[in-house]
């Protein structure tokens, strides 16, 4: 077997080992990489920054622990930004494996800012059939969620007085790991015309850029890079995503090296024949 053929048939376990080293080593080496902010992330930040004390924002934490790495940093940053400004949050968790994780997140951030459930935020929890739930909330939040996650009636909550449906919230920022993102665009924005912004996993990011020029979403944060961009704008103390970008950069360089090795091997072995 020629050298170039060996390049193409490299045992994948060597690739795994090299990528593993590329991810592990930067965790111990202190350095930073610059993060440039894209317009689609800046528009989400500018929107949240423009909110005033007492405004209501709907945050959908529609993901499960498998994609926490990408979506948790942006969820944390946005919630901290909102609580710091006195914005009241209505939060849902429409992924079946996510309500417990979302409740932990909400409790963590609310304790930091001494915010009270029912007064400063309302955590609705999970209901099955996200598409129907999103449509029903457009009529009245109390149709799918007569009570919040903790069993407290929405009608008894001070912050939910006079809040009937999406008309009383400024926008929806949905952190999505699956097809529920389509439901927010189709049902919430398409049917009820409520402004929607998305925070999606890296895998999904390329598929949702098309909704920006059509103004079906006003902002898009894609994956860890999107979270790092948002953190660089928010300038908060804890920046999980920014710290991980340096590791991401090194890992990507390693992946590119292997792609080049494979392609060089392919073209050179073709030429030899």
């Amino acid at each position, binding site marked *: 077997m020629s050298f170039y053929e060996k390049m193409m048939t490299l045992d994948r376990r060597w690739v795994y080992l090299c990528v593993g080293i590329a991810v592990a080593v930067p965790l111990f080496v202190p350095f930073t990489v610059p993060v440039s902010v894209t317009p689609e992330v800046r528009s989400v930040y500018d929107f949240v920054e423009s909110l005033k004390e007492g405004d209501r924002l709907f945050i959908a934490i529609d993901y499960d622990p498998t994609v926490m790495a990408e979506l948790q940093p942006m969820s944390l940053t946005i919630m901290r930004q909102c609580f710091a400004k006195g914005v009241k949050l209505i939060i849902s968790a429409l992924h079946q494996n996510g309500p417990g994780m979302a409740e932990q997140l909400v409790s963590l951030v609310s304790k930091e800012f001494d915010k009270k459930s029912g007064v400063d935020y309302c955590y609705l929890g999970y209901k099955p059939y996200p598409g*129907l739930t999103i449509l029903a909330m457009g009529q009245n939040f109390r149709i799918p969620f007569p009570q919040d996650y903790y069993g407290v009636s929405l009608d008894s909550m001070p912050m939910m007085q006079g809040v009937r449906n999406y008309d009383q919230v400024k926008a929806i920022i949905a952190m999505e790991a699956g097809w529920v993102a389509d439901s927010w*665009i189709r049902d919430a924005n398409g049917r009820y015309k409520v402004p929607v912004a998305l925070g999606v996993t890296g895998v999904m*990011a390329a598929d949702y850029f098309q909704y920006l*020029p059509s103004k079906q979403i006003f902002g898009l944060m894609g994956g*860890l890079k999107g979270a790092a961009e948002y953190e660089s704008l928010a300038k908060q103390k804890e920046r999980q995503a920014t710290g991980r970008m340096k590791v991401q950069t090194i*890992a990507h360089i390693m992946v590119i090296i292997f792609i080049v090795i494979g392609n060089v091997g392919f073209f050179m072995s073709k030429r030899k024949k």
Partner: protein
Amino acid sequence: MDLGSALWNGLAVFLTLCIFSILYKDNPFYKLAEHLVVGISAGYFAIILYYNGFLPKVWVPVVKEGKFYYLIPTILGIMMWTRFSRKWSWVSRYPIAAYMGIGMGLAIPLTMYAFILTQLSATMQPVGFANAKLINNLLVAVWVLCGLIYFFFSKEHTGAFGWAAKIGIWTLMVGFGAGFGVTVMGRVSILIERFEFLVNYAKALIG
């Protein structure tokens, strides 16, 4: 780190390493972790569905509030379970028909509006060469058209039509490449978080 956290996080570390072991070769530790994840996810979802679906939408309205009309969708739901019986599976056709009808009635108009008509109108924008936005609109329109031409198989891809189809293929390839790139980014992000967890656990243990 207290003993409870050390034990639970230690279990998470063990299961993470079990999952990583598949990278070398298949083994019983990987199978154990894989089966655990499937079983725990299914069990967790069943409980979540019970407390967030069955209790507030069936038990409380019917038993506690006397809203007996909730029994109509409940019976339709129970009829769905007859799928599992060879003799009675025909009963499930009625709730499936109702479910499909309602679903299509809700979804089709909104899907047409949001994913086809709005996207079409976003493609049909003013074009030109005067500024970057107009050039961008022109490129979007041309590439969308070429991509659609590629999938038109009722005419042979020769001549100008063939060239348009070739541009369409390249457009699709660029799109797939972008999709591959962000997929790699997404998967590497998850790996980074797991490695961070392992490193932080080791640091916490060592103190």
